[in-house]
Structures are given as C-alpha cells and as structure tokens.
C-alpha cells in the first residue's frame, strides 16, 4: 500500500490525492495545497529548494497521518511533501482528508498541516529576485535572523 505520509520529487497531483481519500462513507473531502508564492517576508521570491532528513521526515509524515485519522474518528488522510527545486505556483505540500462530516474534515486538515509544520524535519532555502538564497524558517524569516 502507498504510505499515507510520504516524500516525493515529482509534482503533486491534486486529483490523485483526492481519489486516495474517497470512500462511500465520506461526505466531505478537503484538499490543502501549500504553494510557492512570489513574496515572503516582503522579499521577491523566484523559487524554493526543499530538503529533508528523509528517513525521519517520512516516519513523521506517516505518524501524523495515522494520528490524524485516530484523533478525528473514521477518516482517511494522505500527506505528500515535495523535495527539490520548486518554482512559483508549485505545491510543496498536499494534504487530502476524507471524513463523514465537513466539520471534522476541516479540523483534521488544519491539525495536520500545523503538526507537519511543527515537527517534520524539512527545510527550505528561498531563492530571491536579487539572486541571493537563504534558509528560511516556517514563518519565512531567514534562519540567521532567528538566531540573533
């Protein structure tokens, strides 16, 4: 079976994720996509390079998918995070959830992305319009500033 939490170097396919969580018992499906945007923390961005402690990140993604499904009752959860060089408008993360009811689907989706941002060992280096690159934390601030 395809892992429910996984890393990929290929573009994330929205339709595939939606199909993976579809079940006759589900009345609501929610797909979250985190996308590379052109501005972060006031600076023009041309792309983002994602890297990971791959073995551990895969484990944590899988653990979050399982915990999410346990926490919010009968649910299907799939999490895919992309690694490598991404351009503008490309999805870095896709989270699909299926649940009988929409209220739980929204809570589940939100919990999953927050948990991913909190604990999965993935890093991003932003590429700026001026040609520079910097490691950024999850809020988009350069890591060097955070440590000062």
């Amino acid at each position: 079976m395809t892992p429910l939490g996984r890393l990929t170097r290929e573009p994330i396919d929205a339709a595939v994720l939606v199909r993976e969580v579809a079940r006759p018992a589900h009345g609501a499906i929610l797909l979250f996509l985190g996308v590379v945007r052109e501005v972060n923390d006031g600076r023009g961005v041309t792309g983002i390079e994602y890297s990971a402690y791959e073995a551990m990140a895969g484990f944590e993604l899988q653990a979050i998918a399982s915990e999410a499904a346990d926490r919010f009752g009968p649910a299907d959860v799939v999490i895919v995070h992309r690694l490598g060089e991404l351009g503008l408008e490309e999805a870095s993360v896709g989270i699909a959830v299926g649940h009988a009811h929409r209220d739980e689907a929204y809570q589940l989706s939100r919990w999953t992305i927050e948990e991913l941002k909190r604990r999965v060992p993935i890093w991003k280096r932003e590429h700026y319009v001026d040609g520079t690159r910097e490691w950024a934390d999850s809020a988009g601030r350069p890591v060097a500033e955070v440590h000062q």
Partner: protein
Amino acid sequence: MSVTVLLFASYADALGASSLSVDLPAEATVADVLAEIARLPGSELLPASPLVAVNQRYASTSTRVSPGDEVALIPPVAGG
C-alpha cells in the same frame, strides 16, 4: 565508541559538513555529543541547545547514545 552525527540545512553550512563521526566515552548522552560538536569551528553559529534526534526520533540532551547511533541536529523545521 563512535556515533554518526548528521547535519542539515543551515547547520550543515555552518559546520561545512553534512555528516561527522564523533568519538565518545562509554555511557555518553546527547549532551556529550553536543559538547563535542561545540568544539568545532563554525559551531558558534548553532544555538546552544539545538533540537536533536537519535536514530530518527526526537530525543533530549539526557538521552543515552550507543555505538553506531545516528544522531541528527535538527535546525528549525520549515516544511509546508
């Protein structure tokens, strides 16, 4: 004994390496690993207590390490 220390992202840049082998006395802990790392040039760019994983699970400074363990220093994560 020796353990493998993995470095990522800004920490790998700071220390100029993504993997190191560190020699330690028997019964060493994560705190001992961090003390060894703190002796290396570039380590001044790391925080005093970085997040650490041992064998791919988050660990604390008091976690014991065993010969051949994989100890990873985890910079602030930025997935999503």
